[in-house]
């Protein structure tokens, strides 16, 4: 296992988020250290996606403290989180379906033409296409075409675009909400290795949500379990096992000592 540094990069304490009468988060805690892959697990509806949306500026919590580098942070919009170096692959991907791959990768961060026209916001499509090609090549992702709308790509290819965008722009924290859900085994292995490279080669910290516990044990340094919007366990992955995680996720033990829903 990769020796993670002890320096805390992101810390969240007592995060509460209500949607009407539904409490998505009821005081969740989370701590992300530098250079670690931190798995976030829990049952459907446990609040995993909501929690990472707080980190990505997509959701504003009702209560709780968020700190980056030990300093209080408030993300009023996804832009704020991006500025802090946080990039996210959302569970529902969030691509602009009618735009092509290169535009999706650069959306919100367009490359402009040189000269005075840049002041007027003239975009440089050629440069974006070139840059997207480079980024994808560096990440080892191949796509059939940059110029067709992403709605014409397969599910796995769209996933690749979303992953590529986050990996290309992430400077400090990479968040992946079930990034392998739509992928074949070979592609899954690819995404897991991409997370490792992000950590080892580029020094990023990764938050990795997965339903698949074998993936968690394969890829993560530490693991946090959410249940009903609360944090019930955080441990180095090497010091826990499937049984313990399942027990934490469900809160139930049956007579054979095996967890079940």
């Amino acid at each position, binding site marked *: 296992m990769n020796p993670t540094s002890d320096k805390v990069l992101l810390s969240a304490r007592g995060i509460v988020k209500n949607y009407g009468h539904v409490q998505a988060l009821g005081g969740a805690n989370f701590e992300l250290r530098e250079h670690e892959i931190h798995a976030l697990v829990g049952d459907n509806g446990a609040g995993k996606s909501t929690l990472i949306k707080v980190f990505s500026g997509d959701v504003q919590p009702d209560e709780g403290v968020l700190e980056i580098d030990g300093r209080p942070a408030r993300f009023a919009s996804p832009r704020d989180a*991006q500025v802090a170096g946080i990039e996210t692959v959302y569970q529902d991907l969030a691509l602009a379906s009618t735009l092509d791959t290169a535009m999706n990768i650069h959306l919100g961060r367009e490359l402009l033409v040189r000269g005075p026209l840049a002041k007027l916001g003239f975009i440089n499509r050629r440069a974006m296409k070139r840059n997207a090609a480079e980024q994808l090549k560096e990440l080892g992702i191949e796509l059939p075409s940059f110029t067709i709308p992403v709605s014409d790509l397969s599910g796995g290819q769209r996933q690749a675009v979303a992953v590529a965008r986050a990996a290309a722009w992430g400077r400090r924290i990479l968040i992946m909400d079930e990034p392998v859900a739509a992928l074949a085994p070979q592609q899954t292995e690819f995404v897991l290795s991409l997370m490792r490279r992000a950590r080892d080669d580029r020094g990023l910290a990764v938050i990795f949500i997965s339903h698949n516990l074998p993936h968690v044990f394969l890829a993560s340094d530490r693991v946090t379990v959410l249940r009903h919007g609360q944090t019930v366990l955080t441990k180095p992955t090497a010091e826990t096992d499937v049984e313990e995680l399942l027990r934490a996720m469900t809160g139930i033990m049956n007579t054979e000592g095996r967890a079940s829903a």
Partner: protein
Amino acid sequence: MNIGTHGSASSEHSPAKQLRELAARFFKLESALLVAILGAMIVIFTILSPSGEFFSSGNIRSIALDTSEILVLSAGEMLIIVAAGLDLSIGSVVVFSSVVGAKTLVALSGSPAQVAQFTYPHLALGITAGVAVAVLAGLGWGLVNGLLTAKWGVPPFIVTLGTLSVAVGLAQVITGGLNVPNIPPALQNSYGSGQLFGIPWLVWTAIIVVGILWVLLELTRYGLHTYAIGASPEAARRAGINVRLHTISLYGLMGLLAGIVGVMDVARFDTASIFAHTQDNLTAITAAVIGGTSLFGGRGRMLGTVIGAFIPATLRNGFVLIGVEPFWQNVALGSVLITAVYIDQMRRRRARIA
């Protein structure tokens, strides 16, 4: 490792890939198809009209003049539809703008007694102020539409249906239900019926405005964000785009354009006519949709909209010249519209399957 190797899409000569490329090429051709349709209309009308009258420079000029106002409105409406919005209030805003612009113009050009005798000692001041008031009034209505849509999250269909009614109602209150009289003929003589290189100033205005919007949509960040918001406001927001502000600016821009059209209208007809423009919203939406703009947002090309805007006046004019009852224009236009919507539906279905 190759994450793209999903399904058959990345193998070089697979049928799926070929089909996809063929489809992509067809949709690029869509604009070409529209050009061909308009071209065919022109050829047919020219052959059938007495001594080719349809294609005379005078007649072409007249079609362009009849299209100039709707062209400006269609281009703006198209931007809003690309962002998955809708503005039904544009005709009312044109009327409101032309009324307050004309009122200002008349009031500042001279004393009531002077104006009644068509004497305008302060003509330059009056025209400047009138134009400014008209354009700003349009902008104001647009911002109202944008703010209500973006802040309240009320569907733009409802918001602009409301302002459609309020704007024209206020215009009627201001004028007592009468057209604004005593507008200085100088405005019409110079701008409204003037020409440059044989092309009317009103047509030049449309060319310039549409050109700017074209560049804005296709070449700038603003345009790209407009497409992105139409494709998925959620994706746009998460990419760091200020979706609310952008939406407000789009409706504001549309209002501004309606204000400009208000000025064009006063200059052309030498009056602020409060009973006109009731169909402008539908005509502009039709132009955009015929031109391939998807009502679901995220898709559309300016060239298509421009052609779509020319089709109604071309049909009307052509039918008159070849002696077909002009009522057929509506039948033809509606059929073209339904065909365009059908194509859009097919495209969406194909996109979902792919």
